[in-house]
């Protein structure tokens, strides 16, 4: 009986040590990431990254997204709702992360739309029509054209801009930053440089709430 208890107590102690260790490690790492972010935002936000929300907001949400990713589409209204809860306090930055086949072409479309100042309108149209142009996790960019007609884009200019090397470079840069920041899936969020402790909307909400409270 004593032996049984010894094993049981050791097991509980070791598992608890693991959990506490994981918690301490993650929070220290998040703090370090937050401090590094305040010093240098280079890998998180590039000059070409489309931003949404008040430019002087003190809380940045950086989202690595793929237009063909269904979860990114589901998160989009939730993130906007979160931003509406703290008006003018949050700014959202979109980073191009083509993880699906064919997504890079759709991202080129979005980056070219950004040159016309219509990135977010186009993104909303692209997300709304997602089930029409994504099948079996494969993007079919040629079908996207049917769904962005009402955004008010100069489509001839958009097509020409999509071929610009600077647009391709933006996507390459974002992919390189995703690797630097260890982004392996979309959507991946950083709030003032801090990654989510574990992936999920509740975790994002809590992190945004904490950062907003700390900043204002």
């Amino acid at each position, binding site marked *: 009986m004593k*032996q*049984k208890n*010894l*094993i049981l107590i*050791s*097991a509980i102690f*070791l*598992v608890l*040590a*693991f959990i506490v*260790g*994981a918690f301490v*490690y*993650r929070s220290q790492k998040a703090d370090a990431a937050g401090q590094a972010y305040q010093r240098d935002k280079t890998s998180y936000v590039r000059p070409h990254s489309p931003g949404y929300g008040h430019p002087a907001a003190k809380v940045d949400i950086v989202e690595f997204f793929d237009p063909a990713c269904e979860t990114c589409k589901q998160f989009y209204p939730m993130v906007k709702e979160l931003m509406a809860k703290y008006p003018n306090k949050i700014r959202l930055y979109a980073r191009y992360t083509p993880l699906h086949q064919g997504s890079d072409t759709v991202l080129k479309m979005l980056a070219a739309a950004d040159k016309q100042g219509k990135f977010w309108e186009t993104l909303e149209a692209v997300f709304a029509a997602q089930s029409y142009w994504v099948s079996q996790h494969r993007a079919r960019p040629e079908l996207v054209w049917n769904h962005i007609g009402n955004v008010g884009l100069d489509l001839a200019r958009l097509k020409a801009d999509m071929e610009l090397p600077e647009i391709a470079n933006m996507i390459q840069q974002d992919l390189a930053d995703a690797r630097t920041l*260890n982004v392996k899936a979309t959507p991946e969020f950083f709030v003032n440089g801090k990654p989510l402790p574990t992936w999920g909307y509740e975790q994002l909400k809590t992190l945004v709430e904490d950062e907003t409270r700390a900043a204002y």
Partner: protein
Amino acid sequence: MNSSDRAQDPFSWTLVFLCWLLATISTLGSLFFSEVMGYAPCILCWYQRICMYPLVLILPVALLPFDRNIVRAVIPLTVVGTLVAGFHTLLVGGYIPEDMKPCTQGVPCTEFHINWFGFVTIPLLSALAFLLITALLILAYRRSSP
């Protein structure tokens, strides 16, 4: 038989218990490296895990009550683990040339994530754990012979 074994030699029981502690610490440690710190395990790490993780579940069966035959049964696992970990340690240390490494393209086995005091790497910790567990298990098996 079982209960008399235990009564005969509490020292063997303690040895196997220590092995279980070592195996559990190694298992949780490797999970900490991969799941918390985010280091992807290479293929050799996986072979070592295959030899280490079962000990966490099997050794308690050998302890409650003490059963030297189960101790005997897990020794092949720990010997193979020692060999793989030893090979991995030499690979990381640069004692075995690159072209001999049997790794896939994913995560190179020569990459090391920790380097304490200039020589302590994850495979070295693994090799020491396997070696110690193997030695203690053999000792416990011998000592408890009826």
